[in-house]
């Protein structure tokens, strides 16, 4: 789950990390009011920043500097309601629904600071770089020696000396060094406290008067922790997410939209990916990734079917279930129930293997509905591709 910049900055502030003064606005007039307040307090210019979940906003025109409240209003008007295309969105872009208006900062130094999971070392890692403002992947590719890393020991957490070591490593001394070391500890704590998968400040700036300020803010939350974090669930902006993905997640299904023609319903993420791969090999194109999960009941499968049918350009459906923790009979019942309720105007290919598969196949065969049954994955993919053409 991703948070907006303005949400992330509020969490930063609660942790004691300094951010520019500002406010969020969802109308040009509101943006102007925030800007007037900031200019009144002495700002010489303000930043107008589109609040969308995609990164790389600057390159897409989603960040603009305004020299007056009027200009801030104008920029806001130009952003709100439009589709913002950035290197991280598709060509269709994402809709801008609100902007953050912030006092401009007097930047002396731009740094990068992030905390994420280090999968190889199986712990959190703090990443810092003197190359602030650039995407960290680019820095990693072009100037790897500019990237500093400190592993966070799972038992002990990030230590003071590690924060100091990073701050000195960034070439800082004196007041900025101490300020940066403090922010590093605060950010690592925030990462832990929020059950994050990523917290990032890019750029973290040192101002002309030695203050350390988070000019940008990015927080991703581990979806697996949301069951214990109702406070974070409230920050979820569903309008930023694909409607079908949201609907799927409400039914504990994992769905990702793709642009092909063959709808897939598979149990298990690995098998789902392999099924997509197999469709491609057979000359077709998958319309989606859909994992009915490890403990799918008849109801879950029915819900999965409903979501699947809503995909555009659908020409065939391939159901591939290999029973383990999922039982074939449940799946079969779900399919039959769903086809009772959902109108299906494309051919359905079903492959059922594993636990209780025989019982499931029997149920499908005994039903009055029409399926194409397949034995192997290969055969199932070929049949679906054939039927989709």
């Amino acid at each position, binding site marked *: 789950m991703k948070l907006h910049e303005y949400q992330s900055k509020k969490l930063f502030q609660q942790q004691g990390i300094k951010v520019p003064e500002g406010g969020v606005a969802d109308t040009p007039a509101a943006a102007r009011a925030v800007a007037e307040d900031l200019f009144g307090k002495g700002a010489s210019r303000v930043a107008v920043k589109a609040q969308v979940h995609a990164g790389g906003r600057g390159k897409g025109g989603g960040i603009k500097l305004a020299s007056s409240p009027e200009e801030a209003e104008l920029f806001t008007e130009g952003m709100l309601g439009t589709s913002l295309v950035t290197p*991280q969105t598709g060509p269709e872009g994402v809709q801008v629904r609100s902007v953050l208006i912030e006092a401009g900062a007097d930047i002396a130094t731009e740094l990068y600071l992030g905390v994420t*999971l280090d*999968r*190889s070392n*199986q*712990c*959190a890692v703090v990443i810092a770089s003197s190359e602030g403002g650039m995407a*960290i*992947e680019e820095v*990693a590719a072009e100037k790897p020696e500019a990237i500093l890393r400190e592993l966070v*020991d*799972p*038992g002990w957490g990030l230590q003071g000396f590690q924060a100091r070591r990073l701050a000195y490593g960034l070439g800082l001394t004196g007041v900025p060094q101490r300020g940066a070391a403090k922010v590093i500890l605060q950010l690592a704590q925030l990462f*832990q406290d929020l*059950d994050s*998968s990523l917290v990032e400040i890019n750029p973290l700036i040192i101002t002309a008067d030695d203050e350390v300020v988070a000019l940008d803010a990015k927080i991703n939350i*581990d*979806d*697996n*922790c949301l*069951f*214990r974090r109702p406070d974070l669930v409230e920050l979820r902006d569903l309008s930023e997410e694909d409607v079908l993905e949201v609907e799927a997640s409400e039914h504990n299904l*994992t769905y*990702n939209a*793709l642009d092909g023609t063959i709808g897939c319903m*598979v*149990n*298990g*993420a*690995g*098998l*789902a*990916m*392999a099924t*997509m*791969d*197999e*469709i*491609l*090999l057979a000359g077709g194109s*998958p319309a989606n*990734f859909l*994992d009915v*999960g*490890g*403990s799918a009941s008849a109801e879950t499968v029915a819900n999965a079917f409903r979501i699947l049918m809503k995909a555009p350009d659908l020409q065939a459906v391939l159901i591939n*279930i*290999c*029973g*383990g*923790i*999922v039982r074939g009979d449940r799946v079969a019942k779900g399919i039959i129930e769903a086809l009772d309720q959902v109108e299906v105007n494309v051919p359905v290919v079903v492959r059922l*293997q*594993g*636990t209780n598969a025989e019982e499931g196949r029997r149920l499908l065969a005994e039903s009055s509905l029409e399926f194409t049954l397949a034995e*192997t*994955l*290969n055969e199932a993919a070929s049949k679906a591709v054939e039927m989709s053409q």
Partner: protein
Amino acid sequence: MSIMVDGESRIVVQGITGSEGSFHTSQCIEYGTQVVAGVTPGKGGMLFEEKVPVFNTVSEAVEKEGADVAMIFVPPAFAADAVKEAADAGVRLAVCITEGIPALDMVEVVAYCKSRGTRLLGPNCPGVISPGKAKVGIMPGFVHQEGSIGVISRSGTLTYEAVDQLTRLGLGQTTSIGIGGDPIPGTSFVDCLEMFAEDPDTKGVVLIGEIGGTAEEEAAAVIADDYPLPVVSFIAGSTAPPGKRMGHAGAIIAGGKGTAAEKMKALSEAGVTVVDSPSVIGQAMTEILSG
């Protein structure tokens, strides 16, 4: 021979009275696995299926029934504590089936298990089976057959798929292991490769990877360094778009890293036979072993 579990393994099931726990415990018992105890706090004293004693704590199960392997079906909110309880009680292997455990919980759990000398398999995994000896997990036992192939996979159902093929081609398995689809697994490909290398009965290894992370690249490094067994590999997710989590918490292409193409390249260069369809895994292994 086999690795991780065999006919001597004494299993305690944590969460034995839950819906999934009880179903799969029955299946394991039916397969012939020695399930010696169950644990559900508050249900100590009852008997599961009129024969398996249930305890309040894992310590009791270890002390009274000599359990040395834990199989964990506890819901995500309590799973981290359950795995640590198993490790603290001294089981040598904890198999955590549970899906959806927060990643930072797992960071702690993995380190905790290491500090206690307990091997953790999973979480979010199908478990481990040594065909004909013991099944500690949720895989369908009947597709497996005793033999000489070691199977390692980040996936569940895709593994059953591969095993089914192997069995149909007459290639039985020493042990088949699902290491799980989470970003912080207790046991890695590398761990399993090393165990198979020391198992005299394993003649070849099937490695089923997927997008995300660098576990396959790390496996490739070990294989490149004079690995004694032939390895056949399939990597799922060639069609997966970047930045999207493909079901498994660990299956995500992040910052341009973790693509199927990279992984296949690393494995190929290490001498692995990489196949582009899961349908031909068994066939590829047959060719290698007969060639």
